């Protein structure tokens, strides 16, 4: 009875409170924002774009799957970029509903994580992904891939490797954009092309590179990436709402060249 007497006033108080309603402005004056901007930027996962492409057509997801593994790399910067690329391929494999590809990519994700030194954080996620692939539980795999990215980011931040966490994001976004632009080019429409309108994301990546530790910023691959991202960002910003077929093709070529630079034994020169 004492417990009920203790609880009752709180419950009564809660149920008697009226919603104050939405106190936020009906129209926002962007020249004079009434609140502080939160600095954290979250990069969308590839499935946010891939899902829309699925709704707008019948993309050849299997045609975009990688045919080989991800190689080995002498430095952690490139390892982190390729790790992000591999996770993006995981999202792609789910769209293709290719269980063998998911298993192959899952094992590669674990191999790359081991090379980076985050194996213990990633192993449970890869195990879940492999188990879910046996059940063809695509939703569970997508969720687990997102969790993998979040765990990797948290782990790297705990290891004071924030810059490498950002490299994972950059690698993943480049690969997702490469795939999306390829599929859009195959069957162009303005609605699909609009999905590439992400100048803020590119600006965010360019900004993070500028604030990276000089040892990473001056990495040859990062220098190439910085220039390439600048070009991609300009196309996206200039295109506005309507990204033409030529611009889509150019974005695809830039992403492909940048990823080739990341994966080649020696960082490649930027192609004209």
């Amino acid at each position: 009875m004492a417990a009920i007497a203790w609880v009752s006033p709180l419950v009564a108080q809660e149920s008697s409170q009226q919603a104050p309603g939405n106190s936020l402005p009906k129209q926002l004056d962007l020249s004079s924002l009434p609140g502080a901007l939160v600095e954290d930027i979250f990069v969308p996962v590839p499935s946010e774009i891939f899902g829309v492409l699925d709704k707008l057509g019948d993309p050849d997801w299997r045609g975009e799957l990688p045919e080989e593994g991800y190689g080995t790399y002498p430095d952690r910067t490139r390892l982190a970029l390729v790790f992000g690329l591999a996770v993006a391929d995981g999202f792609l494999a789910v769209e293709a509903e290719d269980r063998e590809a998911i298993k192959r990519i899952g094992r590669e994700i674990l191999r790359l994580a081991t090379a980076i030194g985050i194996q213990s954080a990633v192993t449970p996620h890869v195990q879940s992904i492999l188990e879910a692939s046996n059940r063809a539980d695509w939703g569970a795999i997508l969720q687990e891939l997102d969790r993998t990215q979040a765990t990797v980011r948290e782990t790297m931040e705990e290891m004071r490797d924030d810059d490498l966490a950002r490299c994972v994001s950059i690698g993943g976004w480049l690969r997702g954009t490469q795939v999306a632009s390829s599929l859009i080019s195959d069957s162009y429409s303005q609605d699909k092309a609009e999905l590439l309108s992400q100048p803020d994301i590119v600006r965010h990546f360019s900004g993070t590179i500028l604030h990276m530790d000089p040892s990473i910023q001056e990495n040859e691959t990062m220098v190439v990436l910085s220039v390439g991202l600048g070009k991609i960002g300009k196309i996206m910003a200039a295109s506005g709402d309507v990204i033409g077929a030529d611009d889509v093709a150019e974005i695809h070529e830039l992403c492909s060249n940048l990823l080739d630079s990341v994966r080649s034994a020696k960082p490649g020169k930027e192609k004209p």
Partner: protein
Amino acid sequence: MKRPPVHRRLASVLLALMIAGGGGALAILDEAHSFAMEAAARHVPKGFTVREDYWNGELKAGEKKIIRHQLFKGNEYWFWLGSSADGAWPSLSIYDLDGRPVEVERFQELHMAAARVLPPRTGSYLIMLTVDSKESEIVDWALAYGFR
């Protein structure tokens, strides 16, 4: 969905504080996320994928925060805002870059609020949030989102 009685939520906060020890503040921020997830639970069965990433922090009651985020036309989004502060009434609105609100549905309850968006175009949007409370000066908040 039935919300757990008040005394159970208080007990879970106290337990979280005991477990967290020196990380007590962190436990309270996670409780805000729990309320956001409670709001999200209504929509997950309808096919919404909840992102692992979420924003969180503290603010003065009534203070506004703005988040800039990329949305894609063709997706449907829900944003869920939670706060565990006593008497917390969160609210949020989503605006395009012309300052026009774009949410098509909203709800607000004690400790949680949510808004649904069908972006009219792909691009950046501004999410404004606040938490009103007559009982707490400083309030925690957590904002998560899902899409389908």
